[in-house]
């Protein structure tokens, strides 16, 4: 996974092209809806505390819970494969598809399958892959990538979708969302019923039940895991929760945080393939448990990021995301969470500029249902990549630190700056600073230094 440009380069491109207004309005309205939902739920804060503890308990004993999950799933007839990385996961799934003569796969939107680029691998193997989440289907038709964890087509408006459907599906042009929905429903229904394999992610895997929970509002999660003969569930290894009671807490927290709903429309709990006398459901269930950099993260200073339940709340809360949209992040994981997940999974050296792209305003941590301290994790990653800072910033800060640890010298230096203030200042502002800080002054003026520091004023005050 490589990015051609730096984050700064991509946002400059995005600003030039124009960031769709829809991103700002949609994120802002969902953010407000979520706040209202939380306000109407008196136990929200206690529930968040509990959710955080559940996630951290699960991770602190991840080896044991994973083992338990696998044992019970296997007992119930599921087949488990452990994938060290993307290549192993993709190889297992494409070989399974070949062995089962799979011609068509229906897919439920899932971050981990985007991460490992499963679609590309399957298509290389000659398998047709159909994304079934309405937004993800639109993204796939357009040959794009999703721009938001839970709303993949946040960057498109109805007219974009109308033109796309008319061109790609050969239907009559309509820009009515309900009619566009009907077109997609009809088109996809036929594909669900004639697919050989359904591939989903996993929202939560319950250790004690060997069960996986899969949440959707549209119903594509249920269809993809019911109609095809073979169900493949791909899960990041950190998706575990210990018990069914824990699952109840997290399903509620996920729905409230993702969309402000009390529960998503379908909380689908799958426990093995269909039993002998069940009338429908898949005959095979394969669970692919993916590491792909997670064990390295688990042992690192940003391990806390693995608590994430992929609700997307931090994206909607983030002023940076609102201004640049998801594509500017250059990764399948956008937004605040992406600034930590992307470097920790795909390499900090290559993605060192993502942690820098934050004002550390803390809106993400505030919104996070499991209270991940994203600002602290960003600062941690900045510490690890401090060598990438520009020479002027590095020498400037080093010099400032030397001054600030020597109070007498600091006083002299600030007094010298105050002298300049006397020379330069006319109305208290400077339009530009020669040689210095063009990044600041291109769009902002700089206050002139005061002619007397507070420190000197205090001394003269004769306290």
């Amino acid at each position, binding site marked *: 996974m490589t990015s051609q440009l730096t984050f700064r380069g991509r946002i400059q491109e995005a600003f030039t092209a124009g960031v769709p207004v829809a991103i700002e309005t949609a994120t802002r309205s969902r953010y407000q809806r979520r706040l209202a939902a939380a306000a109407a739920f008196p136990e929200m804060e*206690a529930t968040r505390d509990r959710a955080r503890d559940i996630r951290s308990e699960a991770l602190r004993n991840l080896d044991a819970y994973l*083992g338990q999950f696998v044992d019970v799933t296997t007992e119930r007839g599921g087949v488990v494969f452990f*994938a060290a990385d993307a290549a192993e996961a993709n190889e297992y799934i494409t070989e399974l598809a070949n062995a089962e003569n799979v011609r068509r796969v229906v897919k439920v939107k899932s971050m981990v399958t985007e991460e490992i680029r499963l679609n590309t691998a399957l298509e290389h193997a000659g398998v047709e892959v159909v994304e079934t989440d309405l937004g993800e289907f639109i993204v796939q038709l357009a040959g794009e990538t999703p721009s938001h964890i839970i*709303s993949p087509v946040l960057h498109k408006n109805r007219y974009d979708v109308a033109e796309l459907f008319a061109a790609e599906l050969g239907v009559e042009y309509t820009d009515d*969302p309900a009619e566009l929905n009907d077109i997609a429903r009809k088109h996809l229904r036929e594909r669900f019923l*004639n697919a050989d394999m359904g591939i989903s992610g996993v929202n939560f895997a319950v250790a004690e039940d060997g069960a996986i929970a899969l949440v959707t509002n549209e*119903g594509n999660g*249920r269809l993809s895991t019911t109609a095809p*003969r073979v169900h493949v569930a791909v899960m990041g290894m950190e998706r575990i929760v210990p018990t069914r009671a824990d699952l109840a807490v997290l399903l509620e927290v996920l729905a409230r945080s993702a969309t402000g709903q009390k529960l998503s429309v379908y909380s689908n*709990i799958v426990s093995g393939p269909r039993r002998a006398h069940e009338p429908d459901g898949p005959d095979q269930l394969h669970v692919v448990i993916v590491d792909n950099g997670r064990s390295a993260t688990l042992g690192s200073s940003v391990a806390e990021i693995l608590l994430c339940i992929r609700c997307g709340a931090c994206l909607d809360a983030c002023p940076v995301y609102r201004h640049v949209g998801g594509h500017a992040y250059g990764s399948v994981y956008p937004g605040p969470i992406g600034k930590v997940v992307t470097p920790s999974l795909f390499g900090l050296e290559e993605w060192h500029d993502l942690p820098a792209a934050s004002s550390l305003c803390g809106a993400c941590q505030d919104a996070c249902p499991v209270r991940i301290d994203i600002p602290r994790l960003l600062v941690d990653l900045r510490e690890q990549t401090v060598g990438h800072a520009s020479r002027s910033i590095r020498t400037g800060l080093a010099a400032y630190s030397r001054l600030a640890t020597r109070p007498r010298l600091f006083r002299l230096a600030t007094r010298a700056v105050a002298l300049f203030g006397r020379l330069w200042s006319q109305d208290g502002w400077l339009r530009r600073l020669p040689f210095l800080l063009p990044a600041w002054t291109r769009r902002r003026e700089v206050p002139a230094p005061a002619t007397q520091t507070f420190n000197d004023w205090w001394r003269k005050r004769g306290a």
Partner: protein
Amino acid sequence: MERDVFLGRVQAALRGDALPAPAASAAVPQVRFGDAVARFVEEARAVDAEVSRVNSNTALEAISRIFEAAKEFRYLAWDGLDDVLPGLADRLQQASYQRVDATVATDPEQRRADHARIGVVPLGITAADTAIAASGSVVLAHGNGRPRSASLLVDTHIVLLPVGRIVHSLADALEVVDLESTSNVVVVTGPSRTSDIESALTLGVHGPRHVHILLIE
């Protein structure tokens, strides 16, 4: 990768003790409503489910009205609905409504044929194992004689819900679910919906457009 090697890497990573310690939070307080039934009705309606409060006589009439309104005679259904609503099977048979067998074969060709047959049926009838007052949800445990398609492939999903089966919370509902003998349990909260296109709410994306809950007193 071998299981032991995979889990060994996890164990090695955990030795670094890099995760935040649990804060020993209190258990989430149990949700308890004074009138769970009223709450259920209110919440279910808020998520666009239709709820009719009926008794065993008016339930049969309500179902007939739904069939008539849909101008349909084919339906999918679970076995054993007569236990919940005595006389249902007879009533449907008298009206010449036709229950379509929802069994799907393992063989790929036969499976496609089964799907072609089942996928066009617009009405489905199930009975909720429990229902959740806090969210207006119904819980369906699939299994022997209980096809998933009856609540999934149809346009209108009719759910029979004896009033005594309403519990307060999701936690209460999951506590009594049996995941050993069934491969699938689903908690359904209203009809299928999306807001993917310009955040415009649209019902009936892939699942049923109408969820009609018959609350049997």
